[in-house]
């Protein structure tokens, strides 16, 4: 009977009226009645039932008096007859679907989609069902299993079937189900097994369930470690981006630049402005491509202006530099507040930066974080090339290592200072651009990163680029590891305490400069 109906559904038979009683229940009944109606409509097998349910789930169903309508924009369709409504009634009430109904609809629609010819559609449907489906669709799932050959879809369906059989069925089928679940690595399998182990009266089955549970736990633990590792790398890449610029301005040049955070913030606001322009130009999806160079140039320009106007008069006087740059940071923040307002501005992720990729059943890696990791690597590589392979890089290294000698051989040291500071600032701008994709953009964005940046540079060893990279990764991992044990608040404190003790023991940081440069 069901298969026949599915066949009907697949053949997309010409429209005929839906059961008006079911539609009425769906629109006006309480939650229990609505769920009943969903079952009835799916069993009816009309393709328009699927359409109606989808519309219901999307909040497009409205009622007007006793009439039930599907309303999209200004167009309305009668839910029962499927006829277009010429004039939409002015007084309409939304039919609200809550989570429970949406879950039921998703299950019902997924059950229908298990027979789709599209592999992706079947996979999505199987995923949906594995989240805990109603036992009434078991025959449908079995039927789908027989035909299914896809290596991704099949295990999901097997698990779904197994889960349903756990709740009823003979001892043999329960045992098979438990074994089946034991070979799964889906987090749902764990919940199901836990439930089974607790509820099972039969001792053999209980033991079997516990055995399966351990197997699943072992595999899930891998996923958790992988997720944790990724979180560590992700935080490390953000710290690295934030600190790289400082590694030049502070690490190489020795300027205690308290306005570093604000240079990051300027990069973020530049991204915001570019986003607005590109949206107006209809190129919203690509705004990052323009925002990256823009953020680099704007922050770099601001940095060079600062160097020319303030910082160069203060070389060699760290305390004054510290105070002056701190003052500048306040001025910059206030300037941004005056221009853009004190509230956070919105930088939206382009579509390709939303969502994530599922690598394991319990691990989803978000695209924006993956992108930032690669971005940080690219910036690092570019900076390394610039410092080691170009004349400017040679000059910067020369000037920072031995200013007098560099000056003697004709290096324009003052100009090199400006360029180097601009480079460091520009990289801070890049960090700001990246940060817009994961956090808030507000005038005090930089304040949150200035301490972290100094921490990374000092921890890694002042004057050392490689040290900065290692320090960022170590701090990223340490922070995430502690967070997963102790929560975010304690983790933050613990990392700070650790750094304090570390610097006490080893003031030169992870990697010390050797030779003449270290003595100055």
């Amino acid at each position, binding site marked *: 009977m069901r298969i026949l109906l599915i066949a009907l559904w697949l053949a997309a038979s010409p429209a005929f009226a839906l059961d008006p009683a079911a539609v009425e229940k769906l629109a006006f009944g309480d939650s229990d009645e609505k769920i009943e109606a969903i079952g009835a409509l799916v069993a009816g097998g009309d393709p328009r039932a699927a359409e109606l349910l989808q519309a219901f789930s999307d909040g497009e169903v409205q009622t007007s008096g006793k009439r039930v309508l599907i309303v999209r924009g200004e167009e309305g369709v009668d839910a029962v007859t499927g006829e277009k409504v010429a004039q939409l009634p002015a007084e309409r009430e939304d039919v609200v679907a809550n989570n429970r109904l949406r879950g039921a609809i998703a299950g019902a629609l997924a059950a229908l989609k298990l027979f789709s010819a599209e592999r992706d559609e079947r996979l999505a449907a199987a995923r949906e069902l594995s989240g805990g489906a109603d036992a009434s669709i078991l025959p449908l799932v079995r039927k789908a299993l027989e035909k299914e050959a896809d290596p991704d879809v099949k295990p999901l369906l097997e698990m779904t079937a197994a889960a349903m059989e756990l709740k009823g069925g003979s001892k043999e089928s329960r045992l098979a189900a438990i074994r089946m679940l034991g070979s799964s690595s889906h*987090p749902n399998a764990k919940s199901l097994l836990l439930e089974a182990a607790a509820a099972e009266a039969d001792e053999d089955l209980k033991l079997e369930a516990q055995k399966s549970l351990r197997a699943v736990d072992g595999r899930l633990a891998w996923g958790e470690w992988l997720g944790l590792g990724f979180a560590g790398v992700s935080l490390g890449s953000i710290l690295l981006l934030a600190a790289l610029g400082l590694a030049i301005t502070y690490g190489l040049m020795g300027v205690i630049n308290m306005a570093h955070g604000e240079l990051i913030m300027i990069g973020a606001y530049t991204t915001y402005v570019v986003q607005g322009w590109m949206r107006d130009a209809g190129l919203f999806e690509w705004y990052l491509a323009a925002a990256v160079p823009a953020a680099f140039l704007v922050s770099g320009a601001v940095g060079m202006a600062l160097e020319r106007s303030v910082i160069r008069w203060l070389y060699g006087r760290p305390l004054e530099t510290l105070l002056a740059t701190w003052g500048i940071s306040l001025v910059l923040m206030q300037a941004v507040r005056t221009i853009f*307002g004190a509230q956070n501005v919105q930088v939206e992720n382009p579509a390709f930066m939303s969502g994530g990729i599922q690598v394991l059943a319990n691990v989803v890696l978000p695209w924006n974080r993956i992108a930032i990791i690669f971005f940080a690597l690219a910036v690092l590589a570019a900076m390394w090339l610039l410092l080691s392979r170009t004349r400017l890089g040679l000059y910067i290294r020369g000037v920072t290592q031995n200013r007098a000698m560099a000056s003697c051989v004709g290096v324009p040291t003052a100009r090199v200072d400006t360029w180097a500071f601009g480079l460091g600032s520009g990289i801070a701008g890049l960090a700001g651009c990246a940060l817009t994709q994961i956090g808030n953009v507000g005038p005090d964005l930089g304040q949150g990163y200035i301490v972290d940046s100094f921490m990374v540079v000092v921890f890694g060893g002042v004057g050392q680029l490689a040290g900065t990279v290692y320090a960022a990764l170590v701090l990223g991992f340490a922070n995430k590891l502690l967070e997963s044990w102790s929560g975010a608040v304690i983790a933050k404190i613990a990392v700070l305490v650790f750094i304090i003790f570390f610097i006490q023991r080893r003031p*030169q940081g992870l990697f010390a400069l050797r030779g003449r440069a270290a003595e100055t």
Partner: protein
Amino acid sequence: MVFGAFPKLISLKGKGIAMKRRSFVKALTLAASVAAIGLGSSAALAQQKTVKIGVLHSLSGTMAISETVLKDVVLMAVDEINAKGGVMGHKIEPVVVDPASNWPLFAEKARQLLTQDKVAAVFGCWTSVSRKSVLPVFEELNGLLFYPVQYEGEEISKNVFYTGAAPNQQAIPAVEYLMSKDGGAAKRWVLLGTDYVYPRTTNKILRAFLKSKGVADSDIMEDYTPFGHADYQTIIARIKKFSSEGKKTAVVSTINGDSNVPFYKELGNQGLKATDVPVVAFSVGEEELRGVDTKPLVGHLAAWNYFMSLKNAENDAWKKKWAAYTKAKKLAYAGKPLTNDPMEAAYIGVYMWKQAVEKAKSFDVDKVRVATYGQTFKAPSGIMSKMDEKNHHLHKAVFIGEVKGDGQFNVVWKTKGPVKAQPWSPFIAGNDKKKDEPALMAEKKK
């Protein structure tokens, strides 16, 4: 030793340079003072008799995302009242200050408002930590504060009127809903919050409540993040792990301020769906979701006493007024004017004060306080909002909404009528002995 690691760099000195530096410093001071003037507020009003009120909301820092609109809605209410002749013939002159999400600064600004500006009443605060910071100031100087945000209870001060919800008007009904069949029949709970007094106390109450409903301690996970926290990867991973360890799980979020944006972004990116693990939030409304792509968040919940999507005549009129006001004042959100629960509470607060002043025929704090008891106001939430005769809290209807794709909320559950506040939650030991009205030590002395 950080300074010791400094490479020696050129030190330039010379008359010309010193001059330049001086003029730069001058320019700097000038710029700073111009900026400071820009921050100051309130135009002088002439002729008519005026009365000052204080507006004490963070306009910068982590709470600005939530509090800036409250400042604007108070100013809108003031404009409305002034347009209709003011209060007892007095024009209201608002004094706006920015405590910048800095809790001790709240106390300083409150003192400034009460002693220097001599305001008749103050409308302000969002976080409980800021309210706790200003409370001694208001009690010492006998000021009057209208506090517009839902909070953890455990407080009745004769100097504060609480127009937001107490736990029994928001948190408890929300958890009850999630326990019900329609809410998904949750059995395991993640209590997630920002690390300060409101989330900690609310979660203490909720833990006791859950225990009274037979939830074991092992089925409750509590987790806190600092203010302004932006990296929710591990937290979401922990929620995922916790939810795989057994029965249906729900998350109760008391995250406050702009941390909500990265939290919801991460939630969406990591694919944690509301049908699997619903998240109900007590500090997330239309305004906080403004910058978030809500399509992956459809079905996550919020519990409030007002939603912008409520359909009634008062709300329609109020939304129109707000839209017109944002346009007229060219506010940043004029393009997409949103209303939310604390805005409604702040708006009610201003009118409650106005009505009380008119009833007391005086701006005197003690007289106004007594006159505020039992005041009613037809609120945009569609009910007749009433200030309790004793306990300084509003009677409120409770709504539970699910996030829609457009950032609005679908109301999926509501109370039949207004609920009386219980500031002393019965789920905290010892509260049964506390009186449901403020201690009036100062008055007895008179």
